[in-house]
Each structure stands twice: as C-alpha cells, then as structure tokens.
C-alpha cells in the first residue's frame, strides 16, 4: 500500500489535468481504480499534495490529527463519522503505540475500511426468475444511466435482461432508456405517458412470459420532500409485489457521490417508503469522494452494490471497500 501511495504521491505534484496522459490509454482498459485515482490525483494536485505534507512532517502531533480530520471532512465523511473514526484512531494509537505519521494514517484508513467492509456485499441475481430490481433516487442521480450499465453487466454474466420505463414524468426519460435498451439490444417495456406502476407491472408480466432473468425498473427522480411522489413510488413497489409476491428482489437507491450530507437523509427517506436493499454510488470518476457512505455505514447501513465511474456502458464496478478507502487516502 505504501509503495502505491508513494507512486501516486509523485503523480500528485505534477501539474493538474494532463490530458495527454489520460487520452493515450484506451478508455475501457483503465481499471476503475485507475479512473478513481486519476481523478483523485488531480484533486490532490489542486490541494497542493495534502498527504505529502502529512508525511513530510514526520511526527505525530495535533496538527497531524487535524490534517486527517480535514481529509475526512473534505471527503464528505461528515462530523459524526469523522469523530467516530478519529476516536477509533486515538484508541488504537495509544494501544499500539503508533509513532510515525505513516502508521497513524494507516491505522485511520484501516478504521475506515473496517467501517465500510460490511457494506461490501455483491449482488447476486440467482434464486428468482425474473429477478426484479427496482431503481430509485433523487433527480439526476444517475438511475437511468446505471440501468444501462447494469443491463450490460448482467448480460455479460449470461443473463437475459428486460427494462421497464417507469419514469413516465420527465421529458424524454423514456427515450433515454430506449437508447440504453438499443445499446444493450434488450427489450424496453414502455407506455405512452400513463402510470409508472402499470408500466412496471406490464414489464414483469412480459418477463415471465419470455423467461427473462432480470428486470430492471426505472423510476422518475424525486426528492424526499415531495411526499406525494414518495407515496407514488411506494405504490410502484406494492404493485411489483402484486405481479410477483417475492418481488422486488432488490431495491437499489442510486446516490450521486457529489452530494453531501443530504445523502443520509435520502437513504433514510427512501428506505422508509420502499425498503432499500442496496446502493449504487455514481459519478466517482470526478473529484468528489463519496465519503458520505461512511456516515451511511454508521447511521443507516445498506450494502453498496456498485459504483459508477463514468457515463459509458462499461463504467460500473462492484464496490470494494479497500479500494474505496485507498482512493480517499491516495
């Protein structure tokens, strides 16, 4: 890990946004780690190589703790989780007599990894046919795009996929999903306007008739303050249950990594109305670090099934806690 850090540390001091370096490599061959770290390295450069200063100090003092606190807070970890992590760190530092900044920082990243490890639960779509996945989230989080990527992901596992255009509200939401259907060469069930629950019901019936493995149901973006829309999505869930008593088998809440502490409120509110079983954290290819999942792990833990690292069809990865933590500390 430290070898890795040093390498990235070197990169971080080079001038930001070296476009040549990134465009030379074919996009798809970049691992998500590289994408993640690419973005992060650039933030670091903007911040003037934060960790470099942590390491160059060479001694453990309040200032070091403050820098680590800053690192967590500026990653959207939030006050409560940051305090929790720093307390855990202090306890460990005392117990294990940690004396170098490297050891301290490693202990902190370990504490964070331990906090996030329980959220690392890959999604398996075996056991039900069709396996019905409902996708929800606030406006613009990346629901429809994630569905496009998930369709590819499940197809590459040999599963047949069908999409339900459950967003009957937003302008051209249906056409957007249709395009993703074409890209994946899968059927999209849609209606002209109409009721989202009815569309999803139709889709499940169609999937049953065609022995489809996975149904991905899109829904319109909504903010938890719009109570009638939260009620509407609860109804979609109920109607899914009517179509198949064991469904929905997964209720994915899509979170935008750029969003701050409100993500917590989103998890709580959507969980209350539709019983969320997993999360997708999108837009991690930017400079936002999505540290709010640490707060989520503390206050309303949900498995993080996938992360989104771009707008392309392949820009989806299963969540790996350790990689995520390394990206924050990179």
């Amino acid at each position, binding site marked *: 890990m430290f070898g890795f850090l040093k390498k990235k540390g070197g990169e971080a001091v080079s001038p930001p*946004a070296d476009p040549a370096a990134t465009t030379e490599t074919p996009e798809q061959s970049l691992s998500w780690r590289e994408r993640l770290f690419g973005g992060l390295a650039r933030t670091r450069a903007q911040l003037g190589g934060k960790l470099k200063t942590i390491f160059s100090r060479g001694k453990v003092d309040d200032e070091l703790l403050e820098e680590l606190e800053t690192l967590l807070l500026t990653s959207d970890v939030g006050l409560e989780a940051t305090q929790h992590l720093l307390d855990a760190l202090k306890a460990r530092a005392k117990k294990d007599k940690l004396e170098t900044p490297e050891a301290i920082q490693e202990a902190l990243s370990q504490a964070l990894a331990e906090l996030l490890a329980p959220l690392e639960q890959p999604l398996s779509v075996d056991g039900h046919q069709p396996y019905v996945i409902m996708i929800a989230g606030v406006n613009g989080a990346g629901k429809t795009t994630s569905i496009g990527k998930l369709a590819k992901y499940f197809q590459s596992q040999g599963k047949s996929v069908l999409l339900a255009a459950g967003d009957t509200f937003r302008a051209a939401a249906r056409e957007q999903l249709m395009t993703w259907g074409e890209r994946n060469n899968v059927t999209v069930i849609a209606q002209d306007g109409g009721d989202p629950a009815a569309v999803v019901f139709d889709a499940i019936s169609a999937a049953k008739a065609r022995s489809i493995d996975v149904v991905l149901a899109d829904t319109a973006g909504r903010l938890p303050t719009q109570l009638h829309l939260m009620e509407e999505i609860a109804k979609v869930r109920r109607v899914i249950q009517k179509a198949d008593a064991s469904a929905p088998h997964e209720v994915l809440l899509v979170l935008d990594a750029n969003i701050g502490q409100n993500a917590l409120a989103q998890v709580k509110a959507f969980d209350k109305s539709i019983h969320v079983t997993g999360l997708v954290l999108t*837009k991690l290819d930017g400079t936002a670090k999505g540290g709010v999942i640490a707060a989520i792990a503390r206050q309303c833990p949900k498995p993080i099934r996938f992360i989104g690292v771009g707008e392309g069809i392949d820009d989806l990865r299963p969540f790996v806690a350790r990689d995520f933590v390394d990206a924050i500390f990179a």
Partner: protein
Amino acid sequence: MLDNLTQRLAKVMKTLRGEARLTEENIADALREVRMALLEADVALPVVKEFIAAVKEKALGEEVIASLTPGQALVGVVHGELTRLMGAAHEGLNLATQPPAVVLMAGLQGAGKTTTVGKLGKYLKENLKKKVLVVSCDVYRPAAIQQLQTVAEQAGVEFFPSTTAEKPEAIALAAVDWARRHYCDVVLVDTAGRLAVDAAMMAEIKALHGALNPIETLFVVDAMLGQDAVNTARAFNETLPLTGVVLTKLDGDARGGAALSVRHVTGKPIKFSGVGEKLSGLEAFHPERMASRILGMGDVLSLIEEAKKGLDEEKAMAFAKKLKSGKGFDLNDFKEQIGQMRKMGGMAALMDKMPAQIAQAAGQLPAGTEDKMIRRVEGIINSMTPAERAKPELIKASRKRRIAMGAGVQVQEVNRLLNQFEQTQKMMKQFTKGGIGKLMRGMKGMLPGMGR
C-alpha cells in the same frame, strides 16, 4: 443529530447570559457550534474556516443589547455575515446587448441545466415578453436533444433542432444565426453535463464560449452538493468567465451549504433558484432565506415570510430606505413598526414562529402580555405631539407627565418607552444591512424588556 444552529446555540447561550460584550472567551463555544452547523450544511471546510475567522473579527467587541444574550447577538452577526456573503438580492439576467442575447449553460452531470433552460425560457417569454430560442449542444447524453425539445414545447418557446452527428460549436452558431434572422431576443444554449477534471470536455465548452461570446454564462449547481463543490466551482470559474449561478433542487431538504461554497469561490451572483421539476419551479434567489436555511433556521424563514405578508410593501420600502440612509428613525417610525407588528398578528403569533429556544430565551413572559404591551406603547405614542414624535429629545419632565396622563400610564412607563426607543435606534443602525428578518428578531429581543 442534525440540530439546527439555534438549538445548538441555545445550549451555549445559557452560559453566556448577562455579559455585556462579545469576547474571544464567551464566543469560543458558540463559534465551534457555528462551525459544526456549517459543516453539517455541507459548506466546504476551507470556506467554513474563513467564514468563522471573519465572524469572529466582526463579533469581537460587539455590544450586547440589553435583553439579548451574547449568543443571540452572535447569531445576529453570523446571519448577517452569511447574508452579506450570499450576495445582493436578486440580480436578473443581463440581456442588454445587440439581440439575440446569448445565454450559455454549464455544469456537472444531472445538475438541472436542461430543465433550467426550459424554466428560463418560460420566464423570459411570459414575464419579460421575449422571443426565445433554445438549442441543445448535448450530443452525448442519450435523448438529451429530445428532452430539450419536449421542455421547449412545454415552455412555449422556439426550439432549434440539432443532431448528435453535429459539433456543439456548429450547432450553437447555426442557432444564433437563425435567431438573428428571425428576430429572437434571447438564445438559451444547453450543454452536456461535464466533470471539471474532464479536460477534453472543459476545453470543448471553453471553445463554445469563445465562439458564442455569450452575455450570460450560467453555472448550474445542485443545492445538495457536498464538499467537492469548491473544486468543481473553481474549475468551472477558471475555465469560463461565469456571470452567474443557478441553484437547483432547493425544493429538497438539503441545507444547501454548497451555495456558500460556490459563491465564495466564484464570487458570482446566484441569480435564480430551482424549486421544482416543473417549468414554473424557478424563483429569484433570496440571500437572506438561503442564510437562514444554511443555518437551519427554517422557522426564522417562515417568520420572515409572515412579516413580509403583513408589511405594507410600499411602507416597508420607504422604511428600508430611511434605515439605509442611516438617519431620521423617529417615534413615528417606531409607532409605524408596532402597527405593522399588530397587523402581523401580534407578538404572540410571531413568537410562535421563532426557533423554540430563542423564543424561550428571549421571551420569558406570560403569554398574551406582549400584545397588551404593544397596545400600551401605541397609546403612549399617540399621546405625543407630532413634534415630539419627530424629535424625542424634546420630551422632558413636564411633557412626560402630560403624555403619561394622556395615555393613562405611569411616568416610568413613558421613560421606559423612550429608553427602548433609543435602544431600537441603536439596533437599527446595527441591523441596517440585515433586512426585515433581523429587524423583527431585534424587536422581539427588545419588547420583553419593556416588562422589566
């Protein structure tokens, strides 16, 4: 867990009561609470640090008005400073150019650009009677062009068709050319969402800006953004000469600290708020409201709303002008103000809207007494001659006796009123910049003192 600032401060306040000035010591705890409140609201850490330093400097040595606690006084300073930083009240679009006025939209993926184009189109058409053309340069996102087309239909504005095979710059230039030939007043140019670290995409929009030379370049940001808002805003601001910001999704329950981060980094005015998915969901930006929201002072917000409803617009304007000029606040105004309060349903109703702890801390009075007090004050002022109201310093012992007789009160009460008036005058000076909300709060802090 997400205690609002007033609740937080109420705790600290207790220990601060009875001190006459804000000092480094007596505000240290309170400032820590302010820091936490801002972080919880997603204000970026570097911005929080600078803000706290500024507030501290402003607050130190500040006199604490009689019936306010140092904590309340500090809330005043924090709120005032935050409002000031959020910028002046609504600055509309600048369209003062040889038509068509070109407006370029920029922002992260999913921020609300396309929707905002529709909202602005509708607003310009319906409110300003402009002929508007919209065009999409988003050749990447699936069905982005179709989305704008639908939105344009809903808004009732002209739509310039484009295809994903074209280059954004060529599309935009063709649209502007069309607009010129068809006498459009405004062209709204939608663009694809992009990450600040995507060098190619940032170069694209820079070139687009260069080719269009728009009079307005609006940065569209999601009010829910977290800490990274500073990095994103900085990068967009460095790439493009932004002229303004649109803050979207304010109909949610995010505290919206990103507004402060973005404002701090770009220094550009926040021109509009997005408050819904529908095209009618566009509002002027209210710095004062945003400050309350960031601080978690939602109740103050509704108080201000209420105050505005009750206030006679014109009188309020005239009054505000008077305040701004910094002179001539006399007993007539004082009476006027009290009358306005009556209109708003009296102190009792007002107090209900105050954040619980502040109301409690400030108004340890039996319910109902405030309204009686307002009537008494009005009675006293009514017994004065116009000359006395305009120049309270005229009121010496004999006049006081006459006034007390006329109002059916003790001379001490007249004295108390005059003292209160003097304090209010002082407070007015201090609160001049803070607007109505602060004024009201100040008054509320003042009136219970009448009983003492």
